[in-house]
Structure formats: structure tokens, C-alpha cells
């Protein structure tokens, strides 16, 4: 069985999703590799989040999704979750769990039936909290955190599972510029550690700054796929969003200090 430090690529072929009789995703193919960040881009309703959920095995789909050559559909939910971790935009958790308890949920896939927490579990939780810069939040109640803090905790929960592949659904949406930048830098850190990341992004500038390759969707179909610089370029952006891309027109930001890393 492939464990935490194993690297895995994810490949999808001919993935289609039909929801309520309507086909919202047509014949999508993609590939993501260790050390690489793939952006899923497109206007609202293009099917980005649907695609991400299908890859995570949370929606019924046609076609084939493979992890390291193995068909995901043949895996049990537990085995799948050991390889792919999905981070929702917001958690539906409403109970008064502490941050540490929330992150510990990510260890579910590694627990035995009787399981208290093993030393491995504790190490993985500590490591995940540290990586996501959420260790200071450890004893706080999850529901009382800001959206940005919650996002970091959800990332830590995903990291605690040691899954090599991470699927993030709009991780920077609703975050302020500082929080958003912290999350984007974390994404780069994880890529440097040979995670495979697929990230739904709204902000094309974020995609340009953070991701290596991109897949541009429109009405459930892939319009363009390739390096992010090629995909986020005047031609495809005009076709899909109906706007002209102006290079260097946006105000840029960068971290003011470097002591966080």
C-alpha cells in the first residue's frame, strides 16, 4: 500500500458528469503530477468544482480517473482517501470541535477499529498544523475562527491524512489579501514537497503567480490546457470570459516580511 511519502500522479480520461439529467461536464481529460500545481479555471458554472468533486470521488461520473495507474472507482472510500484529499471551500462543521480535533479527523483513514491515537497520528497532526501555520490555533474552537484561519485548518486536516494528492476548491475565495497570499505560498510549499495539487481558482492573477499548468473550462468543456502562462493569455481569456487581458495592469502584492517561512 502506498503511504504518505509516496508520490502519485492523477490522470482523468473522458470524465463526464450528469447532475439531475443535465450534463454539466463533457469528456474532460487531465493529468497532474507530483511537484506540480494544476489550476482549474473558468467562469462561474463552468464545472470547475464539479470536476474537482468527481476527481475526489464525491460525485458519480462516467469515464476513468486513475491514481498512479489504479482506477479510483475500484478503491474503497478509505483507500481512496489515503491517496486523495479534498479540501472544500468552507466546511459544514457546526459542532464545537477544537482545531486539533478537526485536524485529527484527517487521521481517520489510518485508525484501527479500536484506535486511540498512536504516536504516528500525533506526529502527523503536529506536522500538518505546523505546515499550515495553524499550530497557534490548536486549542481554539474551529467554528469561532475567521474564514482564512478555517481554510488553513482544513488544509491541515487534509495534510494529516498524508495523501499525496490534494484537491483544493477555491482555497482563496473569501480570504483577504494577506490570508490569500499565505494560502498560495502554502500551496507552493506543498508542491515543493512533491505533493500533487489540483486547485480551483477564481483569480487569474493568483493562477499565474502560483500554478504551473492550467485547464480552462467553459460550459463543462475544456477550452484550453497547458502551461498557465499560455492558458491565461489574451486569446483564451477573451474566448471564455469575454474580456481583454491586460498584462501588468493589476496592483501586485508580495509578502512584507519573510519570517513566516
Amino acid at each position: 500500500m502506498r503511504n504518505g511519502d509516496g508520490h502519485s500522479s492523477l490522470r482523468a480520461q473522458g470524465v463526464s458528469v450528469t447532475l439531475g439529467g443535465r450534463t454539466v461536464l463533457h469528456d474532460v481529460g487531465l493529468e497532474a503530477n507530483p511537484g506540480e500545481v494544476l489550476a482549474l479555471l473558468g467562469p462561474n458554472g463552468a464545472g470547475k468544482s464539479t470536476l474537482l468533486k468527481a476527481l475526489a470521488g464525491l460525485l458519480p461520473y462516467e469515464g476513468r480517473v486513475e491514481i498512479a495507474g489504479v482506477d479510483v472507482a475500484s478503491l474503497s472510500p478509505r483507500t481512496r482517501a489515503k491517496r486523495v484529499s479534498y479540501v472544500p471551500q468552507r466546511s459544514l462543521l457546526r459542532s464545537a470541535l477544537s482545531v486539533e480535533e478537526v485536524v485529527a479527523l484527517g487521521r481517520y483513514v489510518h485508525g484501527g477499529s479500536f484506535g486511540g491515537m498512536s504516536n504516528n497520528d500525533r506526529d502527523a497532526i503536529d506536522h500538518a498544523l505546523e505546515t499550515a501555520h495553524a499550530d497557534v490555533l490548536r486549542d481554539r474552537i474551529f467554528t469561532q475562527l475567521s474564514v482564512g484561519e478555517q481554510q488553513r485548518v482544513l488544509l491541515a486536516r487534509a495534510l494529516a491524512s498524508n495523501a499525496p494528492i490534494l484537491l483544493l476548491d477555491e482555497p482563496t475565495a473569501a480570504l483577504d489579501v494577506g490570508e490569500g497570499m499565505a494560502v498560495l505560498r502554502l500551496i507552493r510549499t506543498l508542491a515543493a514537497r512533491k505533493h500533487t495539487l489540483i486547485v480551483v481558482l477564481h483569480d487569474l492573477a493568483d493562477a499565474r503567480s502560483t500554478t504551473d499548468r492550467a485547464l480552462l473550462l467553459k460550459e463543462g468543456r475544456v477550452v484550453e490546457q497547458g502551461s498557465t502562462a499560455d492558458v491565461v493569455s489574451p486569446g483564451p481569456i477573451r474566448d471564455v470570459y469575454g474580456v481583454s487581458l491586460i498584462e501588468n495592469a493589476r496592483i501586485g502584492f508580495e509578502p512584507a516580511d519573510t519570517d513566516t517561512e
Partner: protein
Amino acid sequence: MRLYPLLFLLLFVAGVLAVLVGSGDLTDPVLRDTFLKLRGYRLAAAFLAGAALAVGGVVVQGLFRNPLASPSVLGTTAGASFGGQVALLAYGVAGVGGSFIVPEMLVPIGCFVGALGALAVLLLFLRVTQDLLALLLTGFVLSALFLSLSAFVTSVAQETWELGRAVVSFSLGSVSGTGPRQLAFALPLIAVALVACWFWGRSLDLLLSGEEEAQSMGANVGAVRWWSAIWVSVLVAGAVSVGGNVGFVGLVIPHMLRPFAGTKHRRLIPAAALAGGIFLVGCDIVARLVPSRSEIPLGVVTGLIGAPLFLLLLIRLRRERAYA
């Protein structure tokens, strides 16, 4: 954590009181043993039923992510209750089963058949719809159906005074007539179901974040739903078969415990089993203490104590924003 020492102390106190309190005179050497034995059965029945209902409440509240859920939302409580009443009626009117089943076992068996019938319909719908809301609605409809059938049985039973009394008393909940055979029947079922619920505890923890997130974290959501429905039904059937239809335990006890035991199910479930048992033993003592022409039905006492307790908890929880 001082929760468990406290619970065991309470259990000890409630146990001693349950044996000492009552209308019988313990100084009479001839009757003393009989009284003690009867009160012992009663204590065991109340504890078992309370433990089963409280844990059923914890599981159902986790499954539906709804703090207002009680084990009766699945409809299997009403099914068990209806089954028990039909068994009473069948025995009283036609003497059914008298020759091949010991009469006192008719009601427990009726309860289980009733609960299993309701469960079968529930699982059938669950298999077809795969949807939590559909499960809740099916449970609600089943509950309504069995309650109206129960009302019909109750009205039919009024033709004989004795039978009418037995049916009404059963549906209001009572542990006063529970004997060793019923206990021996319910104990293993409840014990197995309690352990099974504890095993599902980790999956129920994941469900606190909703089904989609739970699934993404590796929970087999379909299996959790399926087995939760089954084990809660077994718990409820066991509880009804030794204690009749007793409400409020499954709703109040989980709420009372969460501030102390936390939200994690593996901690909550054993604590709820103890606390639920203590609560019902306590309610049964109150039922014996309050002066009235006959004993106040147990289901009435749990309501009288449980409703104000629940409202108090609700105010406190709201103030602390422990529950969104």
C-alpha cells in the same frame, strides 16, 4: 476528567435508592426478598432502557447532524410500540401464542417484530433513494403511521377494562412489570448494539462535517447510514420491550453530556449509556415517590423532568454558542 467517577457515583446512589424506595415494607422478613428482587429487576430494566435510548439519541443526532433528533425519528420506536400493543391485544383477546410462547415474552417479541418491520421499510427506502432527507421523511411517515395504528389498537382494547389498562400503561412506559425473562432477552441485544454504535463512533465524528466532507475523509457514508439505522432500531426495540414507550431520554441526555464529554462519539457513547441509565432509574424512583392513586407512568415522569431540563440546557447552550 472527572466525568466518569461522577457518573459511577450517581449510578451507585441511584441504584441504592432504587432498591430502598417504594411502597413495600422491607422490614417484613417474609416479603423482603420478593420486594428486593422486584426492585432489582425494575432497576435493571430502567437502566437498560435508559442506556439504549440515550445512545440511540447520540447516534441519530450525529447521523442527521441535528441536535433536535431523537431515536424515535426513525419510526422504529413507534413500530416497536405498535408491535408490543398488538402482542398484548392478541394475547388478551384470542389467547394467541399462549401455548408455545411464555406469555410474558409476547410483548418483547412483538416489540422486536414491530421495530424490524419499520426498519425493513426504512432500509428499503434508503436503498432506493440514498438520501438522508428521504430517510428522515420516511422515518417521520412511519412514525405517524404506527402511531395511528397504535391509537386504533388502544381503542379496540378499551372493550375490556383490563386489556385497555394494559395497553395504555404499556404505551405510557413502565418498568414495573419487567421480569427476568424480558431482561435476559433485551440485555444481549442492547449490549451488542451499544458496542456496535461505539465502533461506528469515528465515522459519526466525520459526519459532523456533512456527508460530502465525511466521504472525502474516507467514511463510507452509505454504510454509516445503513448500520446506524439498524443498530438504533435494535436499541430502541430493546428499550421498548423492557420499558414501554419512554420519550425524552434520547433527546435530553446527549445534550446534557456534550459540554462535559465533548462531541467525539467514542467518548460520548459510553458516557451517554451510563447517564441515560441513571436518568431513567432516577425517573423511575420519582414515579414511585409521587403520591397518587397508582404510580405515575414512567413516560410521563421523563417528560415532566426532561422538558424543563432540555429548555434550561437550550438557553445555556445558546448563551455559550456551543451549538450553531
